[in-house]
């Protein structure tokens, strides 16, 4: 474990030596700094989710509207590519930090307890609530993300018939049909709903946790923040699940 | 009878008017120049208010300090458990307080058995203490507008007590601890936690070092320095059951006493009136409920004997608010010794409450009706919580049951005005010395004295010693060091070698019970004479039958306790001898033969207006009594009245 840690911390250590970047990296090489970066990247990804959901809601507006939106997006060209690189980097950072801080925490415990119980109230999820499921839900989300990119971006899911969406004669893909093709197979529906539920759980702790890490905590607003975080998490999840249900039910 | 030394002790109190003694003395003392301070080293044993403050302040001045505590961290010292507050003569409440009034109250509270000049100095520096602590970030309670709050405390008619909820001792200690840790970070103080002092090293009549046992590893270590400061607290655990921390002990002080330091007034023990009563024979300690509770709680017992009704079933007309009855002007805020004895008197008369009949009620009904539960909760929430934890009773709904318990010891190693014992270079601070509280300490004065000694007395007085004394360099292999280390080693070997049948705790309990019954809240000649014999027998049995398992080379808590109890066994006898010698009642020392017709303590100024400082004699011989006559130039001792 220690060796693994050393390897993982190598890039960070090298970066602290870069002039200009050094002090910044020093801050981020502490546990608190890392958590702050974790929070910032997490919240950025939440921003992406909102935009993504917002765009996808166009599905309800019908084939034409959605395809127009998709084509407009794709026509951004280099801007879109840059955004995608940024998005990828944010994901990578978030995941990398998750792995390194979790590894560090395992080392910090050294030896596990024979019995460990929570002292907090009752949780819907066992084992002390969503905060103790972040790694598992994170891994599920990552797996889902890979599937999702294969399905939607690369259109490489062998179980899906993309023929209605990609037509040799057509210059432009019909994204509306592609989405529908992917989401309407029962297996995919299950995969998507599982992934989205994992996302909901992840965010139900993640949003509030990120705010706390950024120092946003005030007795007067805490209840609001807590409810707001959970509403956001399940609002986003419900939005995406709604699309899956829509696709399953869509006739035409 | 008692062997009395021919010459009296010199307290080295400076001449001049009382108000100017300290200032004049500050000027008269020799200074160590700043660049020379780094050439001197000082050992400070104990990290409570006195020891922590001393080590930090000496480090700040530039001395090389070594700080020792037996706990795992300096922050655990038992000063932390002080609840109520700390006195100072700030007169922020504009209620007529002054340095002189604080001085007068403290001297009177101590039943005129303290040294005038020391008490006055204490009152003088009290204000600096508050300032210092505030600057350190101690979160004293404050008013809405931001000024410091005060509350009143036993034995005073002004509000001069500063407090941090019910955790004043904790906050003051953490302030001192943080100052100490700051010096540790600068390297001026070296910290040695989990070390217990076992011997004092004396070279050419000067205290020059200590032998400690590293409690984590069992190793004995010798540390040398140019002076030794002892701030090791009181000896209340000689009674086994007390409000003291389990680890509090007399060993460091007693080891010094065995090496010639005089032990003064050991019979002055304070029994605190408001503690949670004993429930069973497994009981390991007693828990104090802060005296501040008496600001709002009313003490009572049923008027009729053996009334076993639930408290809320007893109408007001059948309640005896005995403190208010006997002491109308101070009422529930009568000083500790007086309140304790009044509780004992009621219980002895058959009015006690609870299963054992050894308790009285402390009732918040009226305060809750007057101010509301929220106000009471804000003031005392943590104390009520603690009471509820221990007894499973809710003090918001039913009165607390309280009973007196050993809480503080006014006696300690004898020191002069500079806080130096008769062994040159050995300074004694805080509860470990005898100097400021006379025969009874007022509430919220212990914290004041500890911090006064540590922050504002020792930094100056130790310089005078270092500047004026020829101090040869000595190393760990000095014959005196080697001898001290060997003595410590031999004792451990001897303790481990007994291999008897009884545990250390069983002996300690037995000793405690003897002391509580014969030398506790009330004492008399025949009981004391009897108990001295019993202590000797028990001690003899101890060395024949104690069982200490394991080895001396590891963490061994039985061995730690065994050494402490062995010293308590010797010290207890001295305590009883002192109590027997003092044929008067004063403060916490109550001799049944000497009381007024109303049952109040009858002091005998003609014969006992002196400090009794005892010199240990080896081989079981009787100790020798040295007297320091108490001179009252400014306040005429009167009969203490709180009526």
């Amino acid at each position: 474990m220690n060796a693994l840690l050393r390897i993982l911390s190598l890039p960070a250590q090298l970066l602290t030596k870069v002039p200009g970047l050094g002090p910044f990296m020093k801050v981020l090489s502490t546990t608190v700094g890392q958590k702050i970066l974790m929070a910032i990247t997490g919240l950025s990804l939440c921003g992406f989710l909102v935009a993504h959901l917002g765009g996808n809601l166009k599905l309800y507006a019908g084939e034409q509207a959605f395809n127009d939106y998709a084509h407009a997006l794709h026509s951004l060209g280099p801007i879109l590519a840059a955004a995608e690189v940024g998005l990828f980097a944010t994901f990578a950072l978030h995941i990398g930090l998750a792995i390194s801080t979790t590894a560090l925490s395992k080392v910090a415990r050294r030896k596990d307890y024979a019995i460990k119980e929570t002292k907090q109230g009752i949780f819907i999820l066992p084992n002390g609530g969503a905060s103790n499921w972040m790694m598992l839900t994170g891994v599920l989300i990552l797996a889902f993300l890979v599937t999702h990119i294969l399905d939607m971006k690369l259109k490489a899911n062998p179980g899906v018939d993309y023929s209605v969406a990609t037509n040799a004669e057509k210059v432009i893909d019909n994204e509306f049909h592609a989405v529908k093709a992917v989401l309407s197979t029962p297996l995919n529906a299950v995969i998507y709903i599982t992934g989205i539920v994992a996302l909901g759980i992840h965010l139900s702790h993640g949003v509030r946790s990120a705010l706390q890490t950024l120092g946003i905590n005030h007795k007067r607003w805490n209840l609001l923040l807590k409810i707001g975080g959970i509403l956001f998490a399940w609002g986003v999840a419900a939005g995406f699940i709604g699309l899956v249900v829509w696709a399953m039910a869509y006739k035409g | 009878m008692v062997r009395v030394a021919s010459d009296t002790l010199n307290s080295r109190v400076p001449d001049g008017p009382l108000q100017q003694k300290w200032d004049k003395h500050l000027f008269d003392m020799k200074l160590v120049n700043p660049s020379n301070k780094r050439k001197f080293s000082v050992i400070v044993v104990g990290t409570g208010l006195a020891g922590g403050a001393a080590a930090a302040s000496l480090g700040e001045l530039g001395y090389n300090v070594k700080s020792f505590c037996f706990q795992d961290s300096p922050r655990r010292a038992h000063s932390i458990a002080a609840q109520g507050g700390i006195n100072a003569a700030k007169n922020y409440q504009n209620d007529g307080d002054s340095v002189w009034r604080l001085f007068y109250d403290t001297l009177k509270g101590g039943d005129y058995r303290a040294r005038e000049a020391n008490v006055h100095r204490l009152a003088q520096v009290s204000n600096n203490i508050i300032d210092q602590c505030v600057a350190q970030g101690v979160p004293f309670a404050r008013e809405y507008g931001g000024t410091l709050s005060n509350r009143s405390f036993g034995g005073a008619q002004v509000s001069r007590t500063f407090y941090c909820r019910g955790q004043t001792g904790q906050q003051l200690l953490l302030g001192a601890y943080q100052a100490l840790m700051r010096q540790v970070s600068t390297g001026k103080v070296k910290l040695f936690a989990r070390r217990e002092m076992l011997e004092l090293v004396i070279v050419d009549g000067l205290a020059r070092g200590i032998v400690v046992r590293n409690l984590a590893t069992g190793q004995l270590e010798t540390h040398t320095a140019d002076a030794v400061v002892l701030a090791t607290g009181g000896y209340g655990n000689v009674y086994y059951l007390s409000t003291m921390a389990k680890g509090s002990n007399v060993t460091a002080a007693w080891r010094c006493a065995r090496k010639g330091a005089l032990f003064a007034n050991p019979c002055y023990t304070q029994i605190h009136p408001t503690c949670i009563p004993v429930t069973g024979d497994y009981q390991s300690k007693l828990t104090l409920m802060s005296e501040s509770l008496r600001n709002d709680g009313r003490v009572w017992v049923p008027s009729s004997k053996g009334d076993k009704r639930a408290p809320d079933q007893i109408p007001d007309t059948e309640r005896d608010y005995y403190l208010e009855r006997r002491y109308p002007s101070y009422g529930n805020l009568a000083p500790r010794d007086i309140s304790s004895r009044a509780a004992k008197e009621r219980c002895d008369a058959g009015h006690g409450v609870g299963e054992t009949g050894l308790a009285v009620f402390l009732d918040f009904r009226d305060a809750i009706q007057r101010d509301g539960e929220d106000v009471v909760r804000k003031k005392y929430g943590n104390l009520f919580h603690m009471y509820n934890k221990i007894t499973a009773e809710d003090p918001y709904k039913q009165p607390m049951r309280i009973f007196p318990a050993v809480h503080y010891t006014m006696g300690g190693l004898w020191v002069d005005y500079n806080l130096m014992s008769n062994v040159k270079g050995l300074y004694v601070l805080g509860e470990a010395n005898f100097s400021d509280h006379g025969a009874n300490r007022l509430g919220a004065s212990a914290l004041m004295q500890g911090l006064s000694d540590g922050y504002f007395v020792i930094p100056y007085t130790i310089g005078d010693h270092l500047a004026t004394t020829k101090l040869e360099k000595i190393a760990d292999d000095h014959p005196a060091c080697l001898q001290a280390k060997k003595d410590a080693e031999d004792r451990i070997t001897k303790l481990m070698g007994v291999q008897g049948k009884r545990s250390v705790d069983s002996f300690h309990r037995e000793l405690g019970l003897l002391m509580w019954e014969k030398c506790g809240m009330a004492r008399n000649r025949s009981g004391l004479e009897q108990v001295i014999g019993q202590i000797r027998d028990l001690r003899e049995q101890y060395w024949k039958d104690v069982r200490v398992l394991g080895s001396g080379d590891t963490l061994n808590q039985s061995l730690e306790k065994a050494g402490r109890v062995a010293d308590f066994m010797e010290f207890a006898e001295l305590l009883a001898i002192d109590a027997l010698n003092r044929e008067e009642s004063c403060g916490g020392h109550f001799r049944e033969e000497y009381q007024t017709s109303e049952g109040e303590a009858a002091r005998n100024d003609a014969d006992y207006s002196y400090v009794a400082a005892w010199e240990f004699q080896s081989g079981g011989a009787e100790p020798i009594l040295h007297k320091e006559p108490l001179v009252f130039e400014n306040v005429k001792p009167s009969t203490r009245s709180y009526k």
Partner: protein
Amino acid sequence: MSTHLLNLNLRVWRQAGPNDQGGFKTYRLNGVSTHMSFLEMLDVLNEQLIAQKEEPVAFDHDCREGICGMCSLMINGQAHGPDNATTTCQLHMRRFKDGDTVTIEPWRAAAFPVLRDLVVDRSAFDRIISAGGFVSVNTGNAPDGNAILVPGVRQEVAMDGAACIGCGACVAACKNASAMLFVSAKVSQLAILPQGHPERNARVINMVAQMDKEGFGSCTNTSECEAACPAEVSVAHIARLNREYLRASIFAET
């Protein structure tokens, strides 16, 4: 309050020294009064062990009134046992039932190595305080206590943090063995009080650096520390530490 007697099975971690492997040993203890504190119950166990010529169980304790922070113990997987806002010394046996098996372990963290049985070394906390948990004011150079006004309500928040007893339950209970609650309690207290302001930037940076150096884990905001804290220190102090840290990282002069 009536007395009951319990018969218990105690599963206690025994470890001869820092380098020993250690393991559980089970003891039967009969006739435990419900009025006993948990530590008094261990006293009784130790008396029984001594009578059987077995070395007593080593455990840290001192004041036994819940303020010194020396007692510890993981009791059935909970730091300081099942009660909230309670130290082990204030935990009473009335919380247990006849026939219960009670598992007792030491605090477990790389930064708190076991010295023997249930005793751990918490000097890492001292080193963290030493890194900046103080106000640099030498004895004697303080202004009058009322010179700087601090609103009562604000001072109360500082006191909430200052109430920390340094027992280490937060570290023990945290799945990451993070010391954030402990560190933040001090950072927060001194960040709220004006007396702590001159050093606030360096304080938070240095204390966090020392915390990391000691090998504590990072905070994932599970709030388990707050639930385990006998002094009821809130995770709001952790948020304040985070704010202080951000502030210091961005605005500090050096």
